[in-house]
């Protein structure tokens, strides 16, 4: 008889969180790993918190940071609210800001770092406006003040086109061609698993409701530092979009990341962590 090898569990622990949002009870899936400064991670449109798997498995990061990722309502393992079957899902700036703050409150996080990608990279700008004092620092990945739609979003949700197939195929090009195959296809799979109309509903925020161009001058990076990291292959939020953002926000620090696209933490984690570590180190050792 040989001894059964120990199970190869990863560091992350997942739990379900009850939360009141927009007057309804929600069931949110929250995952975390590590101890120290809370680092609240926000996934991209139409995906879920699995995008941050590499951060949660990086001992050098989890040694100093409590990495937390939750799935937005309707996403991943979070349920849509009761009555969803007769509603069209559309994410708004107000609901998204409220959700992030409610999760931080529910978990008792004291001035967490908040890092979001794409729609998450947009909402950190809204958080910088609404509640800078609540955060130790904000990190916008693939962050722009606005995005113009470049295809008809209706293709993402109609009965004669498979939603999972089209969402996966649509975003595949936003991944850098140099990304390792395993991480590329994992990233695409998350999109293929999204519920009907959810990606499209997130893009309502990304392309319409979440436009923050008119308020960038009000962002005070002295109240809360803002870091921006954008992949060179991202044609949704381009390096030019992020440069324009950095130009208009005094004190914002931008790095453009070669050989990365729209999902840096998920499409090529090893490469991305090389860009993220110095930012986290600056945040940790500030003052």
């Amino acid at each position: 008889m040989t001894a059964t090898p120990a199970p190869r569990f990863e560091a992350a622990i997942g739990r379900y969180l009850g939360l009141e949002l927009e007057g309804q009870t929600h069931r949110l899936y929250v995952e975390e790993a590590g101890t120290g400064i809370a680092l609240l991670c926000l996934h991209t449109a139409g995906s879920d918190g699995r995008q941050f798997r590499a951060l949660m498995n990086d001992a050098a990061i989890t040694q100093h940071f409590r990495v937390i990722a939750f799935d937005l309502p309707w996403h991943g393992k979070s349920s849509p609210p009761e009555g969803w079957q007769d509603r069209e899902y559309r994410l708004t700036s107000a609901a998204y800001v409220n959700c992030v703050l409610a999760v931080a409150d529910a978990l008792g996080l004291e001035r967490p770092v908040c890092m979001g990608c794409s729609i998450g990279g947009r909402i950190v700008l809204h958080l910088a406006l609404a509640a800078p004092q609540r955060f130790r620092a904000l990190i916008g990945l693939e962050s722009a003040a606005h995005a113009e739609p470049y295809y008809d979003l209706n293709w993402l949700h109609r009965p004669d086109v498979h939603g999972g197939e089209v969402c996966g195929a649509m975003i595949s090009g936003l991944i850098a061609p140099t990304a390792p195959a395993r991480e590329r296809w994992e990233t695409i799979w998350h999109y293929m698993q999204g519920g009907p109309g959810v990606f499209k509903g997130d893009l309502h925020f990304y392309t319409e409701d979440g436009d923050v161009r008119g308020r960038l001058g009000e962002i005070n990076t002295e109240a809360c530092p803002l870091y921006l990291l954008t992949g060179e292959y991202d044609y949704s939020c381009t390096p030019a979009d992020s440069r324009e953002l950095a130009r208009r926000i005094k004190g914002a620090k931008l790095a453009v990341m070669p050989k990365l696209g729209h999902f840096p933490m998920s499409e090529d984690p090893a490469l991305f962590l090389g860009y993220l570590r110095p930012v986290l180190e600056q945040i940790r050792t500030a003052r």
Partner: protein
Amino acid sequence: MAQALDRLLPQLANGDPALTRRGRFLDVTFLLKVGDSHYLIHIHRGRLEAIEPGPHVQPRWTFALAASQEAWETFWQAVPPPGAHDLMAMLKTGALRLDGDQHPFMANLRYFKELLALPRAKPEAA
């Protein structure tokens, strides 16, 4: 590359079982424009059944994809530069134009992205 497309593309497509399986419900004729060179491409059950180089008299097609020869050559580089690396990226920049009934294209988006990337040069062994 563009000159050899009518010879190369059927070979590459029909030699790719994952692609032909993915397209098993796909029957469509589309027009591919590589600069001034036009190709009428017939797909049947995911196989590239025929490719007819132009000029065509009264061609019939469901949708058409058009870009300059230079844009396609850039797209077919082993590691294309940002913005030239994906059909949707090229649509956004305006380098690629999509006309006609887009439904079969969108419903089989992965198929068409992969079909049209087949002539891409393989990255050189380091």
